[in-house]
């Protein structure tokens, strides 16, 4: 199929799936993109493609800046905002010949687990439960995941702060990859919690994810947290050390974190997990139970740290220099001290306000020690937990030991666990008018994804299908997560490929 044909199909799907609300801004049917795809087709026939994504349509989560399309973050505050510049990742994709397929819907500023906190309305998944009720697309990159799942684009960029790429991938049956922190530039990615924010990739399979990753996995001097070429080559040579290079050919040691076997785990997810492990064993790999004792604290730590950084990052939306400014008496009465109250009151949705308040509280002088500082300690412990179980050492940790590997004989190469503890909930059960819906329930969905975010580790969610034991015609879809040591992104993608789309 020609690239042009494929692109036209994507555009057609954008139209036919408009009700899913996956994209906030879509591509016009006729536009300069047509010419660029035709050129890419020509290059492909001549064998001179710019990259693996030359001529492909890639959707961009609407908290990643694009110069040509608005960047709203699904917020009233940036309702009509168009950034004056392209994010580095967008720039790199365009230079590689890819076309921005549109801006995908999300939870406002990336805050949410179901993509329902959007100024442009909730994202809807194609998936329905047995009673035909709409299910959550997951969040916050739900728009990107649904756009991929319904072929409105070839692949999509999302952002993953505590699971925002992996969770929607798991809920929509797509592949969602969060690379190691610092590999993909965050320049132009609207910050939610800088120390956790990672650009992630959603694709229909691992190979398309790998193609996109190959383009955006580059150093960028404009992002102070982007790994320099020097550090990258240090990691490379670390991975090329004999003990670690051998993993390419010999059987892998796969870890199963015992603490992830929680009572809330739904039977179908548990089944998908155990069958995935069984499948891996059949492939000749070995399975090892491991312990990550601070896992239970990780979620609490995350919901202290992320809102703290968010309350700081979102202080800039005051309507003075850009964005929406609310009209009304408050804007004019400077001396009263309420200059921004109205603008920010109208600009932010309830979940964003909740997290700003949480963050402002945990950073306040009296609460700082009990919350923010404690959470940072927990974060450090979570990292130690991972370092203790992985065979490869953290390659850029300070006080690096002489060896490249963990002397512990049970140390593992990757961890395999579920992405989410249950299958996607019904959208109706999540909406505000449901008296039993508490924001804490939504936070619970991140329990398996947050630890890798806190440690900055590469993690990917791949869909596996499991025959239902009750009714063999019905199959359960679940996301299985592969987590690797920092910098071990290739290994994570490789293991993910083994499981991707398996019918187990």
């Amino acid at each position, binding site marked *: 199929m020609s690239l042009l044909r494929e692109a036209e199909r994507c555009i057609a799907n954008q139209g036919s799936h408009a009700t899913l609300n996956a994209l906030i801004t879509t591509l016009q049917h006729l536009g300069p993109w047509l010419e660029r795809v035709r050129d890419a087709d020509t290059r492909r026939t001549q064998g001179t493609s710019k990259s693996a994504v030359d001529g492909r349509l890639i959707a961009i989560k609407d908290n990643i800046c694009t110069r040509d399309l608005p*960047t709203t973050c699904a917020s009233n505050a940036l309702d009509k905002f168009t950034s004056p510049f392209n994010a580095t990742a967008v720039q790199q994709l365009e230079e590689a010949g890819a076309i921005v397929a549109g801006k995908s819907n999300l939870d406002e500023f990336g805050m949410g687990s179901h993509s329902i906190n959007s100024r442009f309305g909730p994202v809807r998944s194609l998936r329905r439960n047995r009673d035909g009720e709409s299910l959550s697309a997951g969040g916050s990159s739900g728009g990107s995941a649904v756009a991929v799942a319904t072929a409105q684009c070839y692949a999509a960029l999302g952002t993953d702060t505590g699971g925002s790429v992996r969770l929607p991938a798991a809920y929509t049956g797509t592949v969602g990859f969060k690379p190691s922190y610092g590999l993909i530039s965050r320049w132009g990615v609207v*910050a939610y919690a*800088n120390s956790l924010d990672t650009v992630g990739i959603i694709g229909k399979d691992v190979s398309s994810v790998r193609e996109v990753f190959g383009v955006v996995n580059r150093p960028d001097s404009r*992002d102070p947290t982007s790994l320099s070429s020097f550090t990258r080559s240090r990691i490379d040579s670390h991975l090329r050390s004999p003990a670690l290079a051998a993993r390419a050919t010999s059987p892998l040691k796969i870890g199963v974190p015992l603490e992830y076997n929680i009572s809330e785990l739904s039977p179908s997810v548990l089944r998908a997990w155990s069958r995935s492990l069984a499948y891996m064993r059949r492939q000749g790999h070995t399975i090892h139970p491991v312990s990550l004792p601070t896992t239970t604290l990780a979620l609490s730590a995350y919901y202290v740290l992320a809102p703290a950084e968010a309350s*700081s990052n979102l202080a800039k939306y005051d309507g003075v*220099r850009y964005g929406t400014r609310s009209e009304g008496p408050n804007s*004019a009465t400077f001396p009263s001290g309420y200059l921004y109250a109205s603008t920010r009151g109208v600009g932010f949705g309830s979940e964003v306000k909740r997290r700003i308040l949480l963050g402002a509280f945990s950073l*306040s002088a009296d609460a700082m020690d009990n919350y923010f500082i404690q959470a940072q300690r927990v974060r450090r412990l979570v990292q130690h937990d991972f370092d203790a179980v992985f065979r490869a050492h953290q390659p850029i940790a300070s006080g690096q030991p002489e060896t490249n590997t963990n002397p512990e004989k049970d140390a593992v190469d990757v961890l395999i666990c579920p992405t989410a503890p249950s299958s996607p909930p019904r959208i109706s059960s999540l909406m505000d008018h449901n008296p039993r819906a508490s924001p804490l329930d939504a936070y619970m969905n991140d329990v398996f994804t947050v630890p890798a975010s806190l440690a900055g580790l590469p993690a990917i969610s791949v869909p596996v299908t499991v025959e239902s034991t009750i009714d063999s015609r019905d199959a359960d879809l679940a996301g299985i997560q592969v987590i690797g040591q920092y910098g071990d992104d290739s290994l994570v993608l490789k293991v993910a490929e083994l499981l991707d789309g398996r019918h187990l």
Partner: protein
Amino acid sequence: MLKQVKQQLDENIDHGCAPIGHCPFKITCATYGYTVVGKGTTRPLWHQVSREAEIYRVFSRVQGSAVPVFLGKLDLDKFYFVHGAGETRHMLLMAWGDESYSLDSSPLPSSVAIIIIISISISINYCGRHSATKSPDSFSSLPSPPSNESPLSATTGLMLRPWLRQCPRATRSLACPQCRPPIRIRALDALHTHTALPSSSLSRPIRSLQTSAPESQDRIPLRKQLKQDAKAVKARKRQTRENEEASRGKWELTVGIEIHAQLNTESKLFSRAPTSSTDLPNSNVALFDLAYPGAQPEFQIATLLPALRAAIALNCDVQPVSKFDRKHYFYQDQPAGYQITQYYEPFARNGYVDLFRHDGIAPEDGDSVRIGIKQVQMEQDTAKSQEYPPSLQLLDFNRVSHPLVEIITMPQIHSPATAAACVRKIQAILQSCNAVTTGMELGGLRADVNVSIRQRGDAAGTHHYGGIGGLGQRTEIKNLSSFKSVEDAIIAEKNRQIAVLESGGVVAGETRGWTIGSTETRRLRGKEGEVDYRYMPDPDLPPLYIGEDLVSELRQTLPTSSDALLELLAGPEYQLPIEDAKPLIELEDGARLEYYQEVVDLLRELQQDQDPQAQKSLARVAGNWVLHEVGGLLTKAELVWDAQRVPAPTLAALLDQLQRKRITGPTARRVLAMVFEGDSRAIPQLLEEENLILLPLSREEYVALAEAAIDQNPAMVEQIREKKQLGKLGWFVGQMMRMGEKGRVEAQKADAILRELILEGRR
């Protein structure tokens, strides 16, 4: 007094001098404590403004009643930069109106001083330029005076009434209270009617004015009045001083200072945007400076260099690892909603600054005092905001993220004068190591002071700051922008706290403000309104690692500290008086010192054959000429320093001739002036051609001159003989020099002859 004020301001332009608004200055003469108004102006405008001085002379009779008392003109060595007005180099001095009448307490938008000046400029329009009367409408922009005054003629009433009404003290001190009203009204009428004549020449209104203002019979002579006033001021000063001393005995003041200084860098702290502040508003801004979504900071390593120079010059330990934190508060000049600073781990700690007597510390601090520096941190500046009430604010983001250093001293200062000296000294240190752009006078430096008091000998206070315990509750006074205001604000705040405590109250921990010229600090916000800055490590910025090699490299290339230079110049090798050494070091960023050094070296070489005793004084002589003689010519010609104007070898050659007594002092001055004016002949040739070499007078010639002088003034000779008024000998020396051939009479010899003739009675 004019001279004293000039000397005082030439020494330190901030000493007792603070602008009120744009061009008027409040000047306090340090010697007598007089407060006067200086109308400052720039060089280009001086020509016009100096005409006012002439007008005042014309109005000499009505000064103090219809127009303010005019004290004289002032040409300054240094300039005072006032934003929006430029470099103030000249001043008209006038009597000060009323102290309690200050900017913020006034219902009018401008101060008395401004009103005075407006009235003066109007009088220029009337008499100086022979123009027709301006219509009253043209003054409608002036603040209208309070309305319960008896009606005067419309134009002049509007013009002068605010001054008269609001400033009773000025008129009281200079004219008899009883006769003031009639004079005032008549003077005004005269001013009005006569100056309004369109064809009147300059002289006519003068004459009319003089005749139409009747002299009051019971008026106390001006000189006497001034003397009485000075006495009263002195008494008042003494009283305050005594009170101060009493309260100092009882209460101990403790002050800590935070100084924010703009670093001298090309780029901003976290973006590549240039730091120029003079460019078009909002032209030097990067995406990050405006806090655009998705933009990230890019630390500019070069900005670290001036910061490190500052830290090293302040004797700090540079920290191998430091970090950046976010300080949150909402304000429109703060685009990100937070300022990036170094709260938890600053880049430099544990420094100190030594203050000496000549730095202006308080007498009770003795010869020197060492003030610890707790830490130095880098941070971002904010945007410049201009307020146009009621609802317009203009923002210029050019300044946003300009790198600043914040220098926090230990609370180890115990007197207001020492606090001001500390700020002055830190500014001088920052400037000498080229760490900062400008000083306080240009807004490049701002200070916040923390003030607390505790009773001496009493149970220790319960508060501790900067690791020092036992202190009283402190208050913070924010944003002080001159050395004078640092001192005044601390005095005012100390007195306020003492008053609160002595009346049984409790000092509240709060933030207070200070307005130049006021006598009280005012509350900005209390504890309940205190901002919780929610400091958080910046998650985008990695820690800053500073290598010891960089620090030692900078330490080696740092210029010698001014303290060390001062010690050298005042030491046995140069023997300069401290008050000469200081300006030599400070003038023209060291260029004057460099020139001086060259002159001394050359002069010493030329004088090698002279006796060692004479050689010792060479540096001192050279200092005098470089600083005062060359400096005086520069001031007179209103020129800026140029080492080539009088090349160092030329000055050395001239001084060599003087030291060898081949020319007299006055001749040397004359030659210097000629060289200064562009005479490029070599000194020996010049002296030769102009016939300036001293031909010593014979003893007979001296005797003849002396006798001639004595004969003309027998009475004075008697006074010298009878009353031993030896000082009057000098007057005779002057007479002889005037009578003798120019440049040939040597004062010493003349004095010797006079003594011989008058005292020893040889005649």
